[in-house]
């Protein structure tokens, strides 16, 4: 499977974005639902309308349940239904059950048309023939709005949904791992914004215990987030798990540094680190229990959510850096795919193309703290100004590697995360944890 490393293309795209994106603007509070409804109506009225009419067609969409993303997509789907005459029903399950649910359904008689597929099991699904190729639709002008094609997507992200030369999925939910920090506390104590991870640790040590706060919160539960943080740190060191041919390239010294950071950070984290998922880490920051948070940008939407946070507006964001001047992060995304057994591939493609396009992604971006995967998402100045994490994310994605999506990753990821947890518990040193990771990768992928 080809691994995308088109750094030049990424840099050019991000340079274009950098010209248009600005720092966070203080936007007046507006009714979110009214603004979103207006945006959707505008989308339908203009050239971003869905392509095709599918009266009487019924589609079943499988995804993880969680708001605001699921509710927003359901609202969007109703708009699409109205425009095309089709109907979409949602089969939303908790994330930890999604892979099994999809596998059992796709292995059996089927029943899903549209699937939200995580990179860690995309390779398995593509290899098992569960997914329908969409290259013919993506390359056919009649199936897309005027001017829309594969080139409309950020190439490094779109290529992650390809397998053996065919495109299977369209991406969205672009995000990464960043450091969120309490700018008010940093100002109060005269500290400059954290830059390298060494300064993050020093600041965490400084804040730990002050006013009942922990220094830093980060995810420690083995649900994929540890792997995301590790991949981001490896990217910051210029390393990755495997190369274009699928052979392992993990550098033990780099992995040792990354694990050592986790061990050191755990000393300044709230109790319960090994039981904390991304949402728990973000909530610790949102409720004033931690001065800094390392987590995914979608989970960090809790920091400025008035229904969850007592620290709204007090956060700034910085990318992960090991060496100063080289920010990096893992390119996190999800894939929208179509089931191979779906009898409604054309209708399903129409929804996926419309939903992953910039205007629709803009409707979820602000509430969900995610970014789209199309170039036109990054030209919407109004939306970009409302995404406080965006400058940090842009900087991180300048040196990024994608979430692993090889078939073997579903067994490698739990082993890697277990090694990190054991290192945090003191059962392994950072070096021995890195050695175990290398051994697992060599065994599964070959050196």
């Amino acid at each position, binding site marked *: 499977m080809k691994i995308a490393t088109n750094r030049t293309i990424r840099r050019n795209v991000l340079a274009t974005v950098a010209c248009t994106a600005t720092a966070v603007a203080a936007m007046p509070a507006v009714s979110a639902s009214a603004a979103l409804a207006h945006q959707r109506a505008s989308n339908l009225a203009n050239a971003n309308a869905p392509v095709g009419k599918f009266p009487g067609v019924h589609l079943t969409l499988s995804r993880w349940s969680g708001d605001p993303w699921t509710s927003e997509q359901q609202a969007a789907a109703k708009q699409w239904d109205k425009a095309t005459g089709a109907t979409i029903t949602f089969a939303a399950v908790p994330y*930890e059950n999604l*892979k*099994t649910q999809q*596998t*059992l359904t796709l*292995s*059996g008689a089927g029943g899903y048309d549209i699937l939200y597929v995580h990179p860690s099991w995309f390779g*398995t*699904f593509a290899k*098992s023939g*569960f997914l329908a190729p969409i290259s013919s639709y993506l390359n056919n002008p009649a199936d897309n709005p005027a001017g829309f094609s594969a080139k409309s997507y950020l190439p490094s992200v779109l290529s992650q949904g390809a397998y053996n030369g065919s495109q299977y999925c369209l991406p969205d939910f672009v995000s990464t791992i960043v450091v969120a920090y309490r700018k008010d506390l940093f100002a109060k104590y005269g500290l400059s914004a954290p830059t390298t991870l060494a300064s993050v640790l020093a600041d965490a040590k400084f804040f730990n215990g002050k006013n*009942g706060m922990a220094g830093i919160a980060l995810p*420690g*539960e*083995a649900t994929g987030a540890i792997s995301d943080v590790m991949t981001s740190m490896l990217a910051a060191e210029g390393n990755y798990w495997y190369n274009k041919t699928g052979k392992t390239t993990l550098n033990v010294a780099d992995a040792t540094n990354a694990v050592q950071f986790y061990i050191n950070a755990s000393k300044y984290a*709230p*109790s*319960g*680190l*090994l*039981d*904390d998922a991304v949402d728990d880490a973000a909530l*610790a920051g949102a*409720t004033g*229990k931690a001065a800094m948070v390392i987590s995914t940008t979608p989970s960090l939407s809790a920091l400025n959510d008035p229904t969850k946070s007592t620290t709204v507006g007090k956060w700034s964001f910085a990318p992960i850096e090991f060496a100063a001047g080289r920010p990096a992060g893992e390119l996190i995304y999800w894939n929208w795919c179509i089931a191979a057994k779906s009898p409604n591939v054309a209708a399903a493609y129409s929804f996926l193309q419309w939903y992953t396009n910039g205007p629709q992604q803009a409707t979820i971006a602000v509430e969900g703290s995610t970014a789209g995967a199309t170039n036109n998402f990054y030209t919407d100045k109004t939306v970009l100004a409302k995404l406080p994490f965006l400058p940090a994310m842009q900087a991180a994605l300048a040196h990024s590697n994608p979430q692993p999506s090889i078939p073997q990753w*579903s*067994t490698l990821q*739990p082993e890697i995360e*277990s090694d990190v*947890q*054991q290192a945090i*518990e003191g*059962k392994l040193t950072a070096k021995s944890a890195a050695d175990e990771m290398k051994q697992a990768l060599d065994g599964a992928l070959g050196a």
Partner: protein
Amino acid sequence: MRASQRRRARSHRLAYAFLTPAVVVLLGLIVGPLVYSALLSLYRWQLTQINSSKSYAGVANYRAMLHDGLLGTAVRNSVIFVVVAVSIELVLGILIATALTEITRGRHLATSLILLPMIVTPVVAALIWQYIYNPQFGTISQALTLFGHQNGIDVLGSAQLVLPGFMLIDIWQWTPFAILVFLAGMLSVPEELYEAARVDGAGKARILWSITIPVLMPQILVVLLFRTMDVYRIFDTIYVLTKGGPGAASETVGLYAYQEGFTYFNTGYSMALGVFILVTVFIISSAYIRLLRRRRVF
């Protein structure tokens, strides 16, 4: 004679007719799938290959268990869980049931209240205890702040505390089952035995040890049998709260078999683990049933 033989034959046919639906259900829903699982455990296959051809592996899946360190950890955790949790449930069950027999007014109300945890589904019980164990907001951590411990206690994220934490949940939820069985047993003990003991000068502790417990032995074995089988196969509470973590500190055999099949998709190996669990539960329950038979209960 012929008439009686005909009556007997008719009676047998009637008995078979009544048994047939139960036997059909047993064969179709339990025995059949068990045999099929055992057959599939001889193949190496993934969950994505349900409808595809599978590669025959013989006893390779069973041989792999001998070298599986994580299985060893799961078995060790399960055994510790069974021994500690069931022992405590047994002792608490006897003590509380004994106390309930001493109550004359309000016994029914007290029994109903004590039984409440048992009627909560395990998933709901797990979610309740997730809040109790929360290191920032949970009841236990908040209570500890009254004693000056400000940092909260991390039960579910601690490799040392997570298994005792699950034992506490199990004891909270299933001691009422032991209480129920023992209370019924104690209330059926002839009062004359206790009167004779009291006349001989026996105190409450002596009566409990020398009369109540020996008479209750069949009930004790029944509780041991059911609770051992249930605790050994425990899955739902651990799946909801930690999924075997942190690391493998709360990994149990039931959860491990599930993860092998539905997380890692090693379905052939998962089925072999299922057979392993079945065999071990069969051995344990056979031992208990043999003890029960010696008591001439059956």
